[in-house]
């Protein structure tokens, strides 16, 4: 019998632990050409801001070894556009929407969350703490435990009690566990990690930074070990808080790695640009990996790497 991928987080029931990462699945429509969005665990939407945003100028992207450097600047239709066009479309297709919330002030986060929470069909919120904090000279909220906690408190306070709130953390900090604790203390129901790592590339032809925005965010398989380490460390410190693991997931085996490290859900981002049907494929591969190891339910492996070795501790890979 194939392994059961159904996952329950609090009172949410999802058909699979595989999600799309914020900002990497378009408005859902683009993805739907390649994967049935109703069968993916949930779609984490592009971060929604109050007003429409034109984003950053091009070039916005540079390919790096096994990774991608990007700086889109949260281009999007704004809250009204999202509510009028994107959310209804996702719901019409039977998809579950984890709506990512962004802002430049704690107030903006609260306002967006409150209006989202009044709309039918929002399954959960993810708080993108990677945005520049207007009150701290543009330093991202995620870099400071207190600032991150304040945003989470504002969102939690403006959101219907039955909509879980996940706080999305950045790996660019000396102590990610401290930020995680602050978010949980402020009311986060779960944590999501990681956002992109700050990075930069220089164009050897122009001798200038490759991106118009100078720096960008590094994502893709290159960052996976960093993400797994963050998930592991936070799970070790806060074993009861559900985690969305994210960063460079390319295969079912990569998803398994995050689950073992302590994530209950796994989001796929950059790899969708490489393989637009990655979500369905990864779901299938994960099911196969689990089934091959005699695991009945995906929930049985969550955090398993924190326990003693499950199988032959010694590997004989070549006989």
């Amino acid at each position, binding site marked *: 019998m194939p392994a059961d991928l159904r996952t329950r987080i609090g009172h949410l029931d999802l058909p699979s632990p595989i999600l799309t990462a914020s900002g990497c699945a*378009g408005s859902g429509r683009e993805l739907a050409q390649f994967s049935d969005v109703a069968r993916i665990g949930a779609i984490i939407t592009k971060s929604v801001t109050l007003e429409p945003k034109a984003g950053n100028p091009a070039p916005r992207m540079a390919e790096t070894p096994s990774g991608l450097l990007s700086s889109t600047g949260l281009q999007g239709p704004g809250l009204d556009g999202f509510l009028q066009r994107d959310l209804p479309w996702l719901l019409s297709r039977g998809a579950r929407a984890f709506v990512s919330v962004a802002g430049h002030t704690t107030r903006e986060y609260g306002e967006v969350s409150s209006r989202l929470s009044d709309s039918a069909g929002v399954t959960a919120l993810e708080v993108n703490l990677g945005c520049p904090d207007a009150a701290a000279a543009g330093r991202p909220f995620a870099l400071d435990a207190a600032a991150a906690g304040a945003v989470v408190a504002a969102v939690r306070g403006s959101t219907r009690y039955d909509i879980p709130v996940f706080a999305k953390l950045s790996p660019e900090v000396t102590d990610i566990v401290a930020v995680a604790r602050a978010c949980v203390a402020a009311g986060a129901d779960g944590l999501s990690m990681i956002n992109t790592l700050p990075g930069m590339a220089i164009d050897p032809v122009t001798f200038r930074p490759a991106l118009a925005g100078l720096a960008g965010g590094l994502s*893709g398989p290159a960052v996976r070990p960093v993400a797994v380490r963050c998930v592991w460390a936070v799970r070790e410190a806060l074993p009861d808080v559900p985690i969305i693991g994210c960063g460079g997931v390319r295969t079912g085996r990569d998803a398994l790695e995050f689950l073992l490290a302590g994530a209950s859900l796994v989001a796929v981002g950059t790899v969708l640009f490489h*393989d637009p049907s990655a979500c369905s494929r990864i779901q299938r591969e994960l099911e196969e990996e689990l089934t091959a190891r005699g695991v009945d339910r995906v929930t049985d492996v969550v955090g398993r790497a924190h326990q003693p070795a499950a199988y032959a501790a010694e590997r004989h890979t070549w006989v």
Partner: protein
Amino acid sequence: MAGNDRDGGVAPVQVRGTVLTVRRVDAYVAMTVVAPAIATRFRPGQFVAIAVGGPQSGMIGRRTFSIHDVRPDHGGTVEFVFLPREPGSQWLADCRSRDVLDVVGPLGRPFPVPRDAASCLLLGVGPGAAPLFALASRLAERGSHTDYLLGAESADRVFGALTARRTGRSAIIATADGSLGARGSVVDMLPTVVQQARTDVIYASAPTGVLRSVCAMAGRYGIPVQALVSEPAMICGTGLCMGCVLPAVGTDGVTRMVRACAEGPVFRGDLVRWDDVGTIPFDALGAPGWKPKQGTTAAGERTNAS
């Protein structure tokens, strides 16, 4: 699944296509891949996005190439043409017959074809000429005349000169080094050509700088341009990454940052803000400091309504 979600076309598919032939054509590599589902959906101007480097590839981005031609053999094949240059296209050039590629297509908005016969100028620079020949056939079916204006650095980089001369009403070639046709750029030749050919519409596929000049010039003559943009490089080709944006005016007069892969790659030349490519114009929807006006929607789908 999402049959008609995309502007003006059927949905693309992702297939594992077997390489049929890899041929050298002057400086270019022409590659034919068996992909019936792409071939049957194809309309001229559309492109494919190909994963490069094999299963453990360090190259995350797909490589995008205009479809040069489709043929019915083996259920349907797709041909594209490229210059092997950097690692991605080099890897592709090293593929051999029977290798299997991960191909997504057909992608993007095709060239719109006029209902009635017209005098069409097909302008292509380097590999940019590749998508023009399938377009020419389509145009010919509707009784249109096609004139060609092809350019490149040097003779071996002029793609399709022979075909252009054989099938076009006229075919002018310009090379930077004068090794084939006139010495100079297609932009230099444009005024003469449109006059002699009494051009009704220009189809142009060239680097952004050339497209800008062509559109400026055509604007002065009142000739509409359909421009196929192929810069900046596309990471996904499928509209997911938001990497390939340029500023374009919608029919509502509002400037939006639109994706070259999804809203293009073919744009009405007068709607692209060529001088602002690489910037966010201050009056673009959602630009810093921008304030919403009554009746403006953030949706970009009307940018290309023609």
